C-alpha cells in the first residue's frame, strides 16, 4: 500500500521545526502502509500533548480524548469491535504520569492494541518541566535544582508485569523503528513501543546526538523470550538498548476472554438488539 494514502494534504502541524515527532509520523505512515492497514479499519486513540496530536496528521479514525486517558478508550474500542486495528499514542507525560495507572492495568488486561509512546524526557506543551522519564539532574523552571526523583522505567515496569510485547526505538532511525513498529502492530496482544524522541525546544540534554551516542541495538544474542535477560537489559543505564526486549510466550488476549464473545464473534454494533425473549425469561426467573 502507498503511504501517501495516509497523507492529510496541506495542513497546519503544531510541532516545532526539527521535532522528532515528524520523523515518528513518517515512520508510522510507512509501517501502516507496509502492513496494508486500511485507514478505515484503523483507530488511533490519544490523550493530550504534542505527541497526542499525531493522529490528526494522518488519515485514520481517531479518538483524541483526555490527558492520560488514551489506554482505557483504546481498550474499549478493541473490546467493542475486535476487527479494528487500534493504536494508543501519546507522550511520556500522557502515558506514564497522568495515565500511569492505566498503563499498568492495560498491560495486565492485554488487549490487542499497540501503545506508541513518544518519549522525549520532558514536557513540551507546558513548556519544559520534568517528565516521569527525565533523567536525574535535569534542570527545569520547576525542578530548579535538577530532577532528584528516580526516573520511571517503562520497559522494566512492563516486563515486570509480563507485558505481551516490549520494545524501544529511536525516532532518529526511521528504518529500524519502522520494522519494530510493524512487529508491534502485527503482534497479537498489548505491545509497547517506547520511542526516544528528541525535543529540540525544551530538552537541550537528550538531543539527536545524545541519543545516538547513548543507545545501541540488541543483537541476536538477546532472546526476547527470556524475561530475566529482558529485565536486565531494560535496567541498563550507561548505554540504552533499542529493539525488541521481550515477547511474553503465553499471554491470553483481553477481548478473547470476554464472555460477550464466547458465543458470538461479531462486533457489538452488528448484533441484534432484540432481547425480548431473553428478558422475558429473566423476568420469569424473578417470580
Amino acid at each position, binding site marked *: 500500500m502507498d503511504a501517501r494514502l495516509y497523507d492529510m494534504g496541506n495542513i497546519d502541524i503544531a510541532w516545532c521545526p526539527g521535532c522528532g515527532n515528524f520523523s515518528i509520523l513518517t515512520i508510522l505512515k510507512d509501517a501502516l502502509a507496509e502492513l496494508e492497514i486500511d485507514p478505515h479499519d484503523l483507530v488511533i486513540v490519544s490523550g493530550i500533548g504534542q505527541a497526542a496530536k499525531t493522529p490528526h496528521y494522518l*488519515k485514520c479514525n481517531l479518538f483524541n480524548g483526555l490527558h492520560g486517558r488514551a489506554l482505557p478508550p483504546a481498550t474499549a474500542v478493541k473490546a*467493542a469491535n475486535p476487527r479494528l486495528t487500534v493504536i494508543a499514542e501519546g507522550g511520556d507525560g500522557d502515558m506514564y504520569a497522568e495515565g500511569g495507572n492505566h498503563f499498568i492495568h492495560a498491560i495486565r488486561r492485554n488487549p490487542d492494541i499497540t501503545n506508541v509512546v513518544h518519549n522525549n524526557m520532558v514536557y513540551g506543551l507546558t513548556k519544559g518541566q520534568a517528565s516521569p522519564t527525565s533523567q536525574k539532574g535535569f534542570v527545569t523552571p520547576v525542578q530548579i535544582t535538577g530532577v532528584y526523583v528516580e526516573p520511571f522505567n517503562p520497559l522494566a515496569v512492563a516486563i515486570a508485569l509480563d507485558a505481551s510485547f516490549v520494545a524501544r526505538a529511536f525516532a532518529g532511525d526511521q528504518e529500524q523503528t519502522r520494522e519494530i513498529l510493524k512487529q508491534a502492530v502485527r503482534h497479537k496482544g498489548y505491545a509497547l513501543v517506547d520511542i526516544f524522541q528528541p525535543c529540540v525546544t525544551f530538552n537541550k540534554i537528550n538531543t539527536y546526538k545524545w541519543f545516538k551516542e547513548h543507545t545501541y541495538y540488541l543483537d541476536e544474542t538477546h532472546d526476547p523470550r527470556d524475561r530475566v535477560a529482558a529485565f536486565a537489559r531494560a535496567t541498563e543505564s550507561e548505554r540504552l538498548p533499542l529493539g525488541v526486549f521481550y515477547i511474553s510466550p503465553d499471554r491470553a488476549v483481553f477481548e478473547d476472554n470476554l464472555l*460477550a464473545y464466547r458465543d458470538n464473534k461479531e462486533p457489538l454494533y452488528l448484533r441484534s438488539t432484540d432481547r425480548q425473549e431473553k428478558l422475558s425469561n429473566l423476568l420469569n426467573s424473578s417470580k
Partner: protein
Amino acid sequence: MNSSDLSVVICGEAGQGIQTVEHFLTRVLKHAGYNVFATKEYMSRIRGGSNSTEIRISSRRVYAFLDRIDIFIPLDKDAVSHLRHRLSSETLILMDAEKIGTQVDVEGYRVVNVPFSRLAAEAGGPIYANTVAVGVLAGMLGIEAGIPEWYIKDRFSSKGEDVVGKNMQALGKGMETGSGLAASSGLNLDITKDSQISDEIILAGIEAVSMGALAGGCDFIASYPMSPSTGVLTFLAEHAADFGVVVEQAEDEISAVNMALGAWYAGARAMVTTAGGGFALMEEGVSLAGMIESPLVIHLGQRPGPATGLPTRSEQGDLELALYSGHGEFPRIILAPGTIEDAFYLTRRAFYLADKHQVPVFIMTDQSLADAFYNMAPFDLSGFEVERHIVETDKDYRRYVITPDGLSPRGIPGYGDGLVVLDSDEHDEEGHITEDLDLRTRMVDKRLAGMKGIEAEIIPPELIGPAGYSNLIVCWGSTINAVREAMERMGRDDLAALYFKQVHPLHQDTAGYLAKAGKIINIESNATAQFARLLKIHTGLDIEDKILKYNGLPFSVEEIEEKLSGILSM
C-alpha cells in the same frame, strides 16, 4: 398492631444470614399470594455489627419503610439495643432465650421464647437456624407447607439430598412452632391474599436498573465497585454471555468512564455504575462526553457524603453534583426513578435518550431504592425496540457537521467509507483540533442547540392525589414511596404529591403545578433542599416548608405523616 399489615424485623450480625431469610421469606410469602416489601439497613463491614431487614406483609401494595415493628426477631444480644427505639409494648419479640435470653434486657416487652438454635441443631446443625426462622413465620401466617418446600428444593437441590432433607426438617420444626405461636400469642392477623400476586415478580431496585439497561440495549459496562451501585456490575456480569455484554472492572472510575466513551465511539451502548465518590472521579469523562457529543449512561447510586461518608446508607445529596458536574457548558439529562418499576423503564429510556441526543444521561438512585424490593406485575416489554442512532458514513463524512437542530449524524469507525474523528479540544466539523474562535462560538451554539430536542421529550412529573389540591408535596426519586403511603394513611382530599422522575431539564408544566398550590412542601433526603433550589431556579418560587432527612436512613411512613400533619395544621 394493624391486622392487615404486618411488619417483621430481623436483626443480627453481618454474616448471620439475614439476607438469606429475607430472600426465602419474601419469595414464599409472594407465592402464597401476599404483598411483600423488604428493606435493609446495614453497616459497612463484612462480619459483626448490627444489620436489620424489615419485611412487610400486607393486604395492599406496600413500598416504603415503616418505623413500627410488629414482630421482632433478634439474632444476637446487640440487636435489641440497636432497634430498641422502634420497639413498643405491642411488639412481639421472638427470641431464642437459650442463646441470648440472659444477656438482654427485654423487661416490659412481649417476649416469646423460640429455641431457634435447638431446633436447628435437631434438624442437623446451627446453619439451619435461618430455615427454622422462616418456618416459624410461615407457620404463624398459616402458609401451606408446599410453598416453602418448593423453595428449598429449588434453591438447595444442587447441594445434595442431605442438605434438602435437613432444611425440610428445620422448616417443619419451625412451622410447627409457628402454628402454635399463632394461637398462643394472641396475633390476630387478617391479611388478605390474592392469587394473582403469586404470579408477580419480585425485584430489587438495583436489579431493575440492571434489567432496564439490558432492555435498553446495554452491551458494555465498565465500573469500579462502590456501594450502593455495584449490583448493576454484578448483574450484568452474571448475564454477560447470554446477553453479549462486555463487562470490565476498571482500575478506577476515571478509566471506567473513559472506557465507556471509547465503547460508544466504536458502536457499543455503554454505561457506568457508581456512587458519589466514584462519580467525582468520572467528572472529566462527563465533560468529555459533552465535548465529543457522545452518548453516555451513568447510574449514580447515592449514599451520604461528603467523602466516604456513610458507605452503606442512603441520601439524595448528589443532585447538584450531577447537575453541575464536568467543566464547560453542554446539555445533559438527569432521570430519578423513585419506584422499582420506574428504575426499569427509565434506565431503558436512558439508553434511548443518550443515543438519540448524544449526551450524558444520569439515572440517579440511592441505597434505599437499590436495596429495597417488593412484588409487582411483570414489566411490559412489548412495543419497545432499541433504536440504534448510528449512520453508515460516506467518504466525505464529517462527524460534527453543523445542523439546525444541533445533532450531527453519529458514525462509528469501520462502518462506511468515512473516517470518524473526534477531539476533546475544540474542533472543526470534521472533528480536527481548531483554534478558529468564530468556529468555537458556532460549535458551542451547536452543542447547546441539542437542548431543544431534549426538551421536546421531558418526562412530566407525576401527580399523585387529587387534581384539586391546595397543598402540594414536591419530591424526586425514592422519597415518593414513603410520601405516597403517608398520603394514603392521611386520606386528605386537599393534599397531592408531585413526583419528579426527570429532574433535569424540568418539564414546562412544573411552574403551573406549583402555582396552583396554596402551600408547597418539599420533601427530600438531604440537608440543604437541593431540589427545592432547582425548582426555584426554574420557577422563581421559594418553597418555605421543607421536610429534610440526612441521617442516612430513608424516610419512614410515620415520620412523613407526622411532619406533614404538623405543617398542614399550621
